[in-house]
Every structure is written in structure tokens, then in C-alpha cells.
């Protein structure tokens, strides 16, 4: 090695100033994509059929905003039912009690196995199937009567249908979260004398949240859009509202754009919320990865 000829490389202890790898392909791809995007944007903005004036005319009207509010309200209520019932079902599904376990299994089997559309129709039109509900002795005298149509108004039927269906999916998400928590955590809690429900609530579920939150964010976003199926029950949520408008003025595209813009906005807000939730439930874990790599592997090897 002749040091005089290659001083930059031979000089030890200095910061490395190497030429980075070039990626010409990326620049070509970016150029093509920008061109396509520009064409799409041009068409979107200037093609007259998009009718942006109509979009602007309707996007902030009271009916649309009320539809949006109803959509948000239904999404929140249905997800609340779905998450709470889903956690209960997941814990039931993993119970050592065979009766409890089977009930949860049957629930999940049924609600995942039938189309949510059918479930919506069922709950909303329950009143036509069973006009009255009553409390009493089975096959014997009845004490209290309910008119089903009064007991379950249409909008509650819609919320119930979406929530009960969601619970089946949430149950599987929660179960995968519970399974992700190591056996050692359960044993440590058991050794301290904790009983099953306490250790689920205090030890397992908080750790499972890290796995549960991301797919649940997915479910919320999916639910937001699934509420549009309630158009079947003529519940005036966002989608039904814009449909009602374009049925009278025949401006389908601009009004669907109105609905999509709102769905897109709410979804974006939800994504931000999800980020903070994930950060919260990741506490105490992120640091493990950073500071103690390979610890688990070595422990297992010495056991």
C-alpha cells in the first residue's frame, strides 16, 4: 500500500466521506409518476363532468353535515359495542369453562358467517318478524309485553346490527392480542395469587393492546364506511343523505365526491388518533428492543 497515492482512504480515524450508491431508476420512476399524477389532477380539476361547482354548493350544507354527524355517531356507537363485546367474547373464548367457550365460539361463527347486509335487514325489520317481545315463564304465562318497533327504533337497529357483527371480528383481534402475551406473564400473575379475570384485566389485556390497536384502527375506518350500508334502512347517515340529494337532482358524481371528501377527512383524523394510541400502549416495550437485543434468545438457550 502506498499511502501517498490514496490519502483519503488511508487516513484513519476521520469521518468516512464515501460516494453514496446512486439510484437513477428512482428518479425515472418519480418523473413518470409525477407526469401521471399531473394528468390525473388536470382531469380531476378541469374536466367539466366532475362539477366542482356542485361539490362546493353541497359540501357544507346542513343536510350533508347532519348526515356526517350521524355517520360519526353511528360509527362510534357501533365500535363501542363491538370493542366491549369483542373483549368479552375473546376472554370467554379462552376460558377454561367449556360452556362459556362454546357460547363465544358459536357467536363468532354465526356473526362472521352471515353477511352484515342480512344482519342489518334482520335488526331493522325485526319488528316485522316478531311484532311483540314479552317477559314471562317459558311456554307459560307472560307478564310484560314490548312492541318491538317501539323498543328498537330503526337507527338503534342499525347500530346494533353493525356493533354485534363487529364484535365477532373484534373478538378475534383481541384473541390474537391475548395470545401474543407470553405465558410467563400469566404465570407470574398466577403465582402472585391473581385470579383469571384480574390478571386478564390488569396484566394481559394492557400488554395485548399493543397488538390490538393497529387492526382496531383498521376496523374503525372500515366501520366508518360500512355505515353507508344503512342506506338499506333509510337511516339518514352521510351516504343516504347524498343519495337522497342526487336522486332528486341527478348529480351523482359530484355528490359522491362530497361524501368521499368527508369520509377521507374523518379517516385522516382517525389515523392521527391511532398514532397516539399506539405510542401510549407501546410504553415500556419499545425500549426493550433498543437496549436488550437477543436477551430472550439467550435466556431460552440456557434454560
Amino acid at each position, binding site marked *: 500500500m502506498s499511502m501517498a497515492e490514496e490519502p483519503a482512504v488511508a487516513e484513519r480515524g476521520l469521518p468516512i466521506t464515501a460516494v453514496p450508491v446512486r439510484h437513477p431508476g428512482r428518479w425515472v420512476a418519480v418523473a413518470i409518476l409525477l407526469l401521471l399524477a399531473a394528468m390525473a389532477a388536470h382531469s380531476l380539476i378541469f374536466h367539466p363532468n366532475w362539477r366542482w361547482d356542485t361539490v362546493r354548493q353541497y359540501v357544507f350544507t346542513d343536510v350533508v353535515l347532519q348526515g356526517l354527524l350521524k355517520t360519526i355517531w353511528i360509527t362510534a356507537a357501533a365500535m363501542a359495542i363491538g370493542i366491549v363485546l369483542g373483549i368479552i367474547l375473546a376472554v370467554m373464548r379462552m376460558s377454561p369453562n367449556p360452556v362459556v367457550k362454546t357460547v363465544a365460539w358459536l357467536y363468532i361463527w354465526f356473526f362472521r358467517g352471515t353477511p352484515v347486509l342480512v344482519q342489518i335487514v334482520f335488526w331493522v325489520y325485526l319488528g316485522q318478524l316478531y311484532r311483540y317481545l314479552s317477559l314471562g315463564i317459558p311456554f307459560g304465562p307472560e307478564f310484560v309485553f314490548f312492541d318491538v318497533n317501539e323498543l328498537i327504533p330503526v337507527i338503534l337497529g342499525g347500530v346494533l346490527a353493525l356493533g354485534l357483527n363487529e364484535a365477532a371480528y373484534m373478538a378475534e383481534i383481541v384473541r390474537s392480542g391475548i395470545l401474543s402475551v*407470553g405465558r*410467563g*406473564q400469566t*404465570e*407470574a*400473575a*398466577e*403465582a*402472585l*395469587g*391473581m*385470579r*383469571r379475570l*384480574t390478571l386478564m384485566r*390488569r*396484566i394481559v389485556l*394492557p*400488554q395485548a393492546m399493543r397488538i390490538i390497536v393497529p387492526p382496531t384502527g383498521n376496523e374503525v375506518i372500515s366501520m366508518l364506511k360500512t355505515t353507508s350500508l344503512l342506506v338499506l334502512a333509510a337511516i339518514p347517515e352521510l351516504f343516504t343523505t347524498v343519495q337522497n340529494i342526487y336522486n332528486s337532482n341527478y348529480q351523482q358524481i359530484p355528490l359522491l365526491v362530497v361524501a368521499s371528501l368527508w369520509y377521507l377527512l374523518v379517516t385522516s383524523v382517525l389515523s392521527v388518533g391511532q398514532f397516539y394510541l399506539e405510542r401510549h*400502549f407501546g*410504553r*415500556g*416495550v419499545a*425500549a*426493550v428492543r433498543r*437496549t*436488550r437485543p437477543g*436477551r*430472550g434468545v*439467550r*435466556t431460552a438457550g*440456557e*434454560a
Partner: protein
Amino acid sequence: MTGAGAEIAESVADPMVLAEKVHKSFGHVEVLKGIDMTVMPGQVAVLLGPSGSGKTTFLRCINHLEKINAGRLSVDGALVGYRQRGDKLYELRDREVAERRREIGMVFQSFNLFPHMTALGNIMEAQVQVLRRPRAEARDRAMTLLQRVGLADRARAYPSQLSGGQQQRVAIARALAMDPKLMLFDEPTSALDPEMVGEVLDVMRDLAGAGMTMVVLKHEIGFAREVADTLVFMDAGQVVETGDPREVIARPQHRRTRDFLSKVL
């Protein structure tokens, strides 16, 4: 029984742990083949033996993390997992099993601290949730214990911010917070880097000195020689030899004990 066990058996106290012909199988594999063992209150028993000798399984049977298939196993005079009425055994309910476990502290090889709680939170958790102690009292007790294991300044740290030795000391404090009458240690230093073993053994030595009844599983025998009242050597699901640790280590009676000791000494 020979050695220390026999001497203490002369006193009137009941044994803290009494195992008689304990059998345990996983499927067709018999892991414990008739274990007899006595640990008197205040004694430290060290279980020694090669991997696969069944000592971990036996330890887990003591607080009913595993069910035994045959024999009798009792802690402080009460059968583990069962109630005897006449000559019939009744399985305990989950609640009763949990109540028994409160009185038995367990320390795991891999610490098993709750990662979403601080050191303080780990030690307070079962006090509040299981013993229903008021939070303030649980916090005081936890801080006292952290002081005792030398980690008062790390109360607010999460397990991931602690070294292995510190985590294990917190785990010991967590078990002690339940005021157990018996402590089980499952290879408490095996997952530790060598320089951290000492700090954990110091805590255990203090505990033994304070009169805690302890059953300790270990691969290495320095601690056994120094602290244990009884050394139990297990191999292939059986107790091969029991006695005073210095005696057994210096003059093992059985070939299997000699073979094992020659490998680890």
C-alpha cells in the same frame, strides 16, 4: 432423610413443604417418579441436578402451576390443589388455589416482570389487586422492599430500563410484598450476565438470614454450600441424595451425584 432435615424434624413444627411419593407425567413421559422431600420452616433447600431432572417441574407443583398425578404434596400442612375430607380428595376451586398461592412467593428464571408497569407498579400491583391493601400502604411497603433490595432510586423505571440483575431484584421484592411464608426460586440467576449474579445472591442470602423458608433451584453450587441447610440432588425424576450441603458436595454417596458434581465443580 438425613443430615439437617432430620435434626430439625425433632422440633415440634410441621414441615413447610412435605412431598411424599410425588409423581407427575406429561402425556406418556413421567417427569417426577416418586419425589420425597421435607423442608422445615426457616430452612433453605437447594435443589441441584442436571437439566431435565424434573426439578423445575417439582418446584412448579409446589404452587400448583402443575398438577401432580400421584402422591401427596402439602405446604404448611395443607394439601396443594386439593382438600381432603375423610379419605376423599376434592379439587380446589380457582379462588382457593389463588388464595393458597398468595402465601407462596415465586421468582422466575426470566424475571417475568410486568413490562407495562414501573418497578414500583410491579410491586404494588398484587398488593392492591389481590390483598386489597390501600394504595398508600402498598406504596410504602413497595418502597421499603425496593430499599431492601437496593433499588429505591429506580422505583419509577420500567423493567426494560433495568439491567437483568435489577429486574430480578425487583421480582424478588414483588414476591416478598405478598408476605409469603415460602419462597420458590426457579434458577434465579441463570439468565443473568455473570457480573450481575452476585447482587441477586446477596439479596437471597439476606432473605435466608432473616429466616425465610426457601426452595432454590440452581445449576451452580457455590450458593448451596454457603447458604443452604439442605441440598437435594435430583436426577431423572428422582431424589438421588439429600443432606447437609457441605457433606454432600465433599463426600457424595452416589455415582450420579459424583458425576454431576465433577462436571460443575
